[in-house]
């Protein structure tokens, strides 16, 4: 049996908006990693795409000097998550070991209250039973549940990877193995705009960035949700441009 880690970890992410090119590689990687159903063109256009992360595209500047701004938006794994207390069946719960928000599909009865209450709109809902066409079923990741109709789902910080890493670290007796874990989106990001790591680890490269960067801000931190994701943007504070 795997040894229980003495100290709970707190996984976090830093997203450098100055490096993000809006290429959507993270979105694609996430969809492949987490067995996300493709719901079809019309449904996606209507706002029923099941993507766990999305690139928000805003424009800044006046014509003709217009430029896009990209914000990868995913579940912020809040410390005080608004989705958790409103779920009547504890389908949306906080995990002690990883310090993230879990969605327990078996327990979800589909009230969709959590999705309404999420200020980041990070949650998506399985409106139908989606079919996986024949060759595509071979792509399914065996570590991740294929969700059925009527349940809510959202980004898990690739919790299956975290668990695998913890088991590897415990069985091989090498805690550093756990620090090498990363999420699918961070792994796929060509510009390294997404960085993932353990915030309790003194040597973690993202810890300083997460807590101390002058460019750092958290989205809607005024709501008191204590997100686990810090965004970095062009000097100054709180989204101010250089």
């Amino acid at each position, binding site marked *: 049996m795997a040894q229980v880690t003495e100290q709970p970890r707190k996984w976090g992410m830093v997203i450098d908006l100055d490096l993000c090119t809006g290429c959507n590689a993270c979105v694609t990687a996430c969809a492949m990693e987490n067995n996300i159903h493709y719901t079809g063109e019309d449904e996606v256009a209507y706002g029923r795409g099941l993507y766990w992360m999305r690139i928000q595209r805003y424009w800044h500047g006046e014509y003709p000097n217009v430029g896009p701004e990209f914000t990868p938006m995913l579940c912020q794994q809040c410390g005080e998550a608004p989705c958790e207390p409103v779920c009547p069946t504890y389908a949306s719960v906080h995990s002690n070991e990883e310090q993230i928000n879990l969605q327990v599909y078996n327990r979800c009865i589909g009230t*969709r209250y959590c999705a309404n209450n999420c200020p980041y709109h990070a949650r998506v809902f399985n409106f139908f039973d989606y079919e996986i066409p024949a060759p595509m079923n071979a792509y399914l990741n065996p570590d991740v549940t294929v969700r059925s109709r009527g349940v809510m789902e959202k980004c898990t910080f690739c919790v299956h990877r975290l668990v695998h890493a913890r088991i590897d670290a415990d069985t091989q007796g090498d805690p550093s193995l756990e620090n090498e874990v990363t999420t699918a989106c961070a792994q796929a990001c060509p510009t390294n705009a997404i960085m993932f790591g353990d915030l309790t680890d003194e040597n973690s490269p993202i810890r300083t960035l997460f807590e101390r960067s002058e460019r750092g801000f958290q989205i809607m931190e005024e709501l008191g949700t204590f997100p686990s994701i810090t965004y970095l943007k062009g000097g100054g504070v709180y989204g101010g441009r250089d």
Partner: protein
Amino acid sequence: MAAETSYLTGARADLEQSELAEEHLMLDPRPREEMNQMVMEAMTTTTPVYWAWVGGLALIVAVCLFGVWGYMTATGIGITGIRRPVFWGVFIVTFVFWIGISHAGTFVSAILRVFKAEFRRPFTRAAELMTTFGLAGGAMYPLIHLGRVWTFYYMVPYPNARWLWPNMRSPLVWDFLAITTYLLSSTIYLYLPLIPDLAMARDRTTGLRHRIYRLLALGWRGTEAEWHRLRKAINIFAFAIIPVMFSVHTIVSWDFAVGVVAGWHSTIFGPYFIIGAILSGVAAVVTILFVLRSTMRNFKYFIRPEHFDALGKLLLVFSMAWAYFFFNEYLLSWYGGEEAVQRILTLHATGPSAWVWYLMLICNVAIPWLTLWNRRIRRNPLAMFFITLAINVGMYAERYTIIPLTLGHQRMPFDWGIYNPSIFEISIAIGTMAMFCLLYLLASRAIPLIPVWEVQEGQMAHSLKKVGKAHVPSVTELE
């Protein structure tokens, strides 16, 4: 000369007296048996038109409500129009609408009973029945709107293999408990005053009906001790159900106020929802009274313009109170200064669905304020029917504004979305409406819709006292 004067005075007094009797049910007593027979006749008379309505409504319920619900359970909740970020739509709107209507039924009956408002007597039961059937319609929606309705019992606190209780921090669990509490207490409150009338019906029927009434009347004989206990029980319930009603609708408002959703997270929501519920509920009582009065035999004797008049005044007061809270919501949001909330409130009035917002204001404020101050309009049942119908349309628009229209424009403009109800959602909403009407239709022939004993009690207590030359109605305290 003197004799002639006195003769004239006597004639005028008679005229005055007959006018008063025509005006007030309480001053127009009829023999008890005659009144009993009037109610029994109304209860046992069915026309082909009645059966046509029953059949039509049953068909609508079967197809639009249960048929579509079954189809939705088989295919998925995706056949509704909801989408990210608007995860709650017509279902929750209709849920709040029914709960609001049902809350005010008992409220009207209980508060008028507590304050001994004499005009309440003939229509308390109609209002209480509205509560029960409104709850029956509303309580279905928490099930209908679930993504996986077959697992609804996860919300019920029962010992289970998962070793899990429901999450008591979730407003949905509070809601579940509040609604079941209210359903139970309002049903008892409906049943208690019904016992003497059921006994009355028991004594005037034969066969199967007689046996059912005998069972339901709990062996009521009408002894002094029984009356004493009944009055006491009704009194306790009338007082107890008022705080229950307040708490339950506050809890429904907490479904929204507890969230961090901009435009929902407001402390004003509790009283705002209660006032809204009372406004829509009282309006629905008037609508139902009109329908009863114009369709059921002998009801024109019981339901008179004076009742529409009195309820019309109540409606005007509640419409003003509602407008006050509506204004307050804007005032507090403006004072709070949260940008997202201000943007939502502006979008309600200027956005793509602004017509819903204006419809709400026209129906809830303009129409009642412009009409209900007028005694002649208040006393015209048909006019009151349309006014109260409009108020309920307005209250539906209010809930629609609060739920999907607020959800659609949250803090991140990139994720804004507009929700369009699908035909299936609308059909289910119509289906519960039909179910309400159907249950009411069936109940109108199954139980005495007029609390006969209360009317008779009131008529015994009322008399005309001569003060100087005028006749003044006076009420004797019976209890």
